[in-house]
């Protein structure tokens, strides 16, 4: 039940700048996911919102009030930690009661809130156990329960699922999605490493890199219209292929002559002045199709990986260190060593000039890490 506004927020430890120029508007009821490579400052940003880290520059507003110097407990936030951080000497019930008792709420109301949270999260028969007597998934639910009882305005999650095994992770992810649906007015901020979590849970994703925001947008926005090479390669797996070339035709459609000999057509518009400029063409592995006539890329198939539903083809690198990757639907045998020509639907061909997509050429270029993976 709150909106957040970050204005030019920065964080430095002494002379080390970890984050700078963070501008972000978060609406009530959104589920915002922070993603980014390890060490880019996701946790730091979340902890600044929580009040566990001092904000060294800029302004943070919750519900229109500047809270830079407000202690965590009065910001109306609740946090779920990566290692759950349950109080080991207290039972599940006591863990959930703790904050309410500190706030001197009366016993009947505490009881009612704990009951309600236990019902939502199916914790009923676990209430009198100690954290060490619970499984990882159950601990996670208790940690979430502990934040629900406080009825916060903003929920903060720092990689809540990263300690769970793959199956449980999927199950808990769905539980969190359901929880969000039950509480449509609560705002959530969620940090994760996991792209699937980001794509499935988020209303909007914030990609952090190199101490700043690389792009903010809905999951499909980021997938279909990445603002720069970093986001293009960070979202999606395997990463988008980047192939060098030169613009030869401009206008509503852009035509690029590839360094490797092919020719790419994109629906991204370009200006007359762009003719002759060096660009990188971006094509997602799954968007490559076998070419009958004109091709974007031609090469000899190196390794193939058959995953059943798709087959991954690895080619020699072209204009970079990474191999070019193609992803074909279904099972394809005996492609290894063959010469293959690939092309793609012009609507799915991205054009990057100086790491920035031509789609967003009017936005200021961001200083970001150059490589996603």
């Amino acid at each position: 039940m709150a909106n957040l506004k970050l204005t030019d927020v920065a964080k430095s430890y002494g002379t080390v700048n970890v984050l700078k120029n963070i501008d972000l508007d978060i609406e009530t009821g959104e589920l915002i996911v922070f993603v980014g490579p390890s060490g880019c400052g996701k946790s730091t940003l979340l902890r600044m919102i929580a009040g566990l880290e001092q904000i060294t520059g800029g302004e943070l507003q919750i519900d229109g009030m500047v809270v830079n110097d407000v202690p965590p407990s009065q910001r109306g936030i609740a946090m779920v930690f990566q290692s759950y951080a349950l109080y080991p000497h207290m039972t599940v019930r006591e863990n959930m009661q703790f904050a309410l008792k500190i706030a001197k709420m009366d016993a009947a109301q505490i009881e009612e809130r704990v009951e309600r949270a236990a019902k939502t999260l199916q914790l009923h028969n676990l209430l009198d156990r100690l954290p060490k007597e619970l499984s990882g998934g159950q601990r996670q639910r208790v940690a979430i329960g502990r934040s629900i009882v406080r009825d916060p305005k903003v929920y903060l999650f720092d990689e809540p699922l990263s300690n769970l095994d793959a199956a449980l992770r999927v199950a808990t992810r769905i539980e969190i999605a359901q929880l969000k649906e039950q509480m449509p007015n609560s705002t959530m901020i969620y940090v994760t490493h996991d792209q699937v979590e980001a794509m499935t849970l988020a209303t909007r994703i914030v990609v952090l890199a190199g101490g700043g925001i690389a792009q903010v947008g809905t999951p499909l926005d980021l997938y279909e219209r990445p603002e720069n090479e970093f986001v293009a390669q960070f979202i999606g797996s395997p990463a988008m292929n980047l192939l060098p070339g030169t613009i030869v035709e401009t206008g509503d459609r852009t035509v690029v002559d590839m360094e490797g000999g092919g020719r790419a057509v994109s629906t991204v518009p370009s200006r007359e002045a762009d003719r002759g400029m060096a660009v990188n063409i971006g094509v997602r592995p799954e968007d490559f199709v076998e070419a009958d006539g004109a091709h974007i890329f031609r090469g000899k198939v190196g390794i193939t990986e058959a995953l059943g539903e798709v087959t991954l083809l690895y080619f020699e690198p072209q204009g970079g260190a990474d191999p070019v990757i193609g992803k074909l639907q279904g099972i394809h045998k005996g492609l290894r060593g063959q010469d293959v020509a690939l092309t793609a639907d012009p609507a799915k061909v991205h054009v990057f000039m100086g790491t920035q997509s031509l789609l967003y050429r009017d936005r200021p270029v961001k200083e970001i890490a150059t490589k996603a993976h």
Partner: protein
Amino acid sequence: MDAALLGLSTIIIGVGGCLGYFYFSNLFLDRVLFPPKGENAGRNINRANQIRPWLFVFPAMFALGLYLGYPVFETLRLSLIDRSQDNAFVGFANYNQMFAEAKFWEAMRNNMLWLIVVPAVSTAFGLLVAQLTDRIGWGNIAKSIIFMPMAISFVGASVIFKLIYDARPEGTAQIGVMNAVWMSFEGGIGSFIFLKVFPIILILSFAAMVAYIGYIVLRMAGGVWVMVLKLVAALFSVWMVVLSVQSVWGVATANLPYGEPQQWLTIPFFNNFFLMVVLIWIQTGFAMVILSAALRGIPEETVEAAVVDGANPFQIFFKIKVPQIMPTIVVVWTTITLTVLKIFDIVFAMTNGQWQTQVLANYMYDKLFRANDWGVGSASAMIIMLLVSPILIWNIHNARKEMR
């Protein structure tokens, strides 16, 4: 022979002997007893490996048995016979004689006082220091200084404190800190605040704390045994409160001899506390080191979770940190308790049990080696052992639980 030379040769013979024992016994096992060759090579290796641990454990077991195990039984025997009557068996006569002595009960009472005060104060101070020095830059320096007394022997520490409590004739410079401070009180308003108001507040807050603890204990639910325990605890706290009120009255009405140097160690009852200070000074360092490690082991995220939950620093300390290190606190507490039960050196060196400061260990020494009364001396030794054993067992039990 020169003492240093003697020491050196002892070290050489001792260490050399140990090395030689392990080397040659293993050699004997592998070469002569079960050589790993011939037709039974495999079986011999297994057997040698079964015996080998015992080669290592045996010297310690032997020494412990000889110097710890055997004396327990011998002391028990000695406490039941009378040497002057041709070693005749006298049953519990020695014990009865001892129980009839006022000095024994004085020692018992003092030991109980030590037992209540020293472990509690040392652990509390240790915890306090550990917490306060955790986050500050010079915390480690402070810790090293507080830990230093651990390196001083009890007798050395006693000598230091004897100087602190020292008294010189009136008119000469006081070299003892206590008297130097004392002489600066002249009966004015400052003296009134420091020597009347302040102690009264201290005693009253102690009484309030005991009453509160008693109240908490009384409210606990439980079965028959807990009921009994509750009753005992409640009576104890009532007794403590009564004592406190009495001492408040005593402090208020006391006529303090301002301007006269005091022989601190001869003031009955209080001199016990002057002795205890020495041990507290030493043991605080021990408690601090162990508890500081335990505090460091608390996951930082649980503390942060408590911050987000709105707990203030006191609540974080008492409700999140202390409960998490409770097992360690118990181990520290009981370890100090064991030291206290056996306390001897400090009393021996400072008062030798005079002026009503006797404790059990010094009482035993008095009987055994000064009065040459082997029966009563051994009987008091058995009493000490009886008191120590349950705490020792509990301590080991807790320590092992900690390690798992």
